[in-house]
């Protein structure tokens, strides 16, 4: 499983169950993930991204998830 796939798996659980690995998450919070591990939980995306980039500067690695139910984007 790739780094991205590990992050996606955690992100999906986090947004569905509002919990992962014994940690709970509030809707509207921003969670930075790297290698499938939670790096930080922040109340805005900038803080989550900063925490992620302090550990790994590659913008292709890691993921920042907005904890929220899955929403379909409609582009008319």
């Amino acid at each position: 499983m790739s780094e991205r796939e590990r992050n996606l798996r955690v992100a999906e659980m986090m947004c569905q169950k509002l919990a992962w690995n014994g940690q709970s998450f509030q809707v509207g919070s921003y969670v930075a993930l790297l290698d499938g591990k939670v790096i930080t939980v922040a109340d805005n995306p900038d803080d989550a991204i900063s925490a992620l980039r302090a550990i790994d500067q590659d913008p292709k690695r890691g993921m920042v998830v907005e904890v929220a139910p899955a929403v379909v984007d409609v582009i008319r």
Partner: protein
Amino acid sequence: MATIHFPSLPDAEVVEVEFLKPGGSTRSMRLLVDSGFVGQSCFVLAEDAAELRRAELPPTQAMGALQGMQNRAWVTCRILALSFQRTLIAIVGDISSLSLPAGVEGMVGLRFLRQFGRWGAEQVGDSGWQFFLADGDK
């Protein structure tokens, strides 16, 4: 209340948004305004906008002019005249199906517009139109 105006195209409203690249330089884009574009994402941008990505987030399901799973990125945008700067969600991918007007590089949707206190279009002169964004301060 600060307000910025953007001359309308003959058949579309557009805004000019500046994006900050992770390295610190900037890129300005003219983007189509579509309040019917709704969901979690604020922008739809072409694949070459991947250079703006500060971080990835899970793909989203899209319906309408774009269909299927779409990759997304956190991008930082600003409009200096409004002292506006936010990190927001962009769909980044193949936008050839959107048939955008010449010189328009993507779209902004309702979630972007609602970052502002007021937004809309107004007629200027006899036949011209302009789109405006205003901050929320009274």
